[in-house]
């Protein structure tokens, strides 16, 4: 079991800020593919992956990263702090 978080317009498109996901996905890309297959709102949120960033256990990572041991996955657009 994994907690998945969404921020900014990714959150708005998916409709929830966080959810528990039961998955056997090996990598972030696998997880994204799995979510996109679920419902249209996920497919829409992840339609342009060049606009999506991912953090694993609160550290920036990338789509090819392994999910082994990861408890928290967050998807969000490029950051606009400062």
């Amino acid at each position, binding site marked *: 079991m994994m907690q998945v978080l969404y*921020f900014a317009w990714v959150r708005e498109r998916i409709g929830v800020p966080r959810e528990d996901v039961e998955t056997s996905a090996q990598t972030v890309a696998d997880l994204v593919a799995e979510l996109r297959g679920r419902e249209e709102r996920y497919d829409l949120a992840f339609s342009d992956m060049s606009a999506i960033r991912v953090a694993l256990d609160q550290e*920036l990572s990338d789509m090819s990263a392994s999910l082994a041991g990861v408890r928290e996955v967050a998807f969000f657009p490029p950051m606009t*702090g*400062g």
Partner: protein
Amino acid sequence: MSVSVQADDFDVGAEIIALSAGRTDIGAVVTFTGLVRDMAGGKPISDMELEHYPGMTEKALEKIEAEANARWDLQASRIIHRYGKLTPGAQIVLVATASPHRGDAFEAAEFIMDFLKSRAPFWKKEGTADGGKWVDARDADEDALNRWS
């Protein structure tokens, strides 16, 4: 070294005093204050909503600050970043650096700001006449970051 992620406003003058209080070895203090502008892309905005990733934000800011302290000769540093709904003119972010040398204080403050712009987990939504608009990341900010690598 100290970071704060908060909804509340901050007092730049008080932060500078806190940074250098009781010390006589500091030669230069640089501060950067970021403010909400009333216009974006040529259109007026009513407010700016800052969303962030609690937990990761603090870690990211501490990492940025530690990196700046490793690269430059800093005697003290401070980062404050607000979240929530802010109106035009409101303060968003403060970066303050203290060093024996002006070059170090300036560069470290610019470096921290460049990192905050594209590596701290904040997202801005501008309140416009036709609803809200998420601010796009700017290529210029990514370029600004690359000059430090």
